[in-house]
């Protein structure tokens, strides 16, 4: 078992250094209303993807977390994605 779960390991000793997707001049602005942007940093289940995989900087990851939580609260994205929910579904308290 090597670190095969990294997204791009086509060549073993070459790994391109990733940069924060929110750094730079024309980087997208983190907005909790932008579900399409947020969906890139959320797993299919609805959990946030760790920044070590998405290469988001610490500062932006905190901002992103806030955005995801706001979007969840306003029911733009689910807290838990049960995908095909049969009977009952998500029995949240909210």
């Amino acid at each position, binding site marked *: 078992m090597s670190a095969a779960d990294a997204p791009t390991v086509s060549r073993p000793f070459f790994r391109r250094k990733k940069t924060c997707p929110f750094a730079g001049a024309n980087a997208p602005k983190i907005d909790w*209303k932008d579900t399409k942007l947020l969906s890139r940093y959320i797993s299919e289940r609805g959990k946030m993807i760790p920044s070590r995989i998405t290469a988001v900087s610490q500062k932006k990851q905190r901002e992103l977390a806030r955005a995801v939580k706001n979007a969840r609260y306003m*029911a733009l994205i689910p807290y838990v994605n049960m995908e095909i929910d049969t009977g009952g579904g998500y029995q949240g308290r909210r």
Partner: protein
Amino acid sequence: MSFYETVFIARPDLTEAQVTGLIETFSKVITDQKGKITKTEYWGLRTLAYRINKSRKGHYVLLESDAPSDAVIEMERLLHLHEDIMRSLTTRLDELTEGPSCVMDKSGDDREDRKPRYNKDDKKTDKKEAA
């Protein structure tokens, strides 16, 4: 005075006219206290990601304002008390945004910017869920 953005979800059984009435009443709270409403957006009846108060849909409204904090606190208080409002969220903005928000850019539905062939299927499944 600082910039705020308020989004609230109204009950789905309201008519559009009733929603515009709500927008007016809450805008008035801001303007009465010397605040300014800089943007109002009605996102339409959208499907919620999960059920709130046993409903699967809701009318989304966005208000952007340049107002004193007292006005915003008062509006939030009234939003919480109002029976037709299922949920509301106010966030502080660093600066006022220009143009329609990203929700409006994608013409209301978050899937309409995708390939058109998916559209039909999406709408069908939506109807099934609602029924």
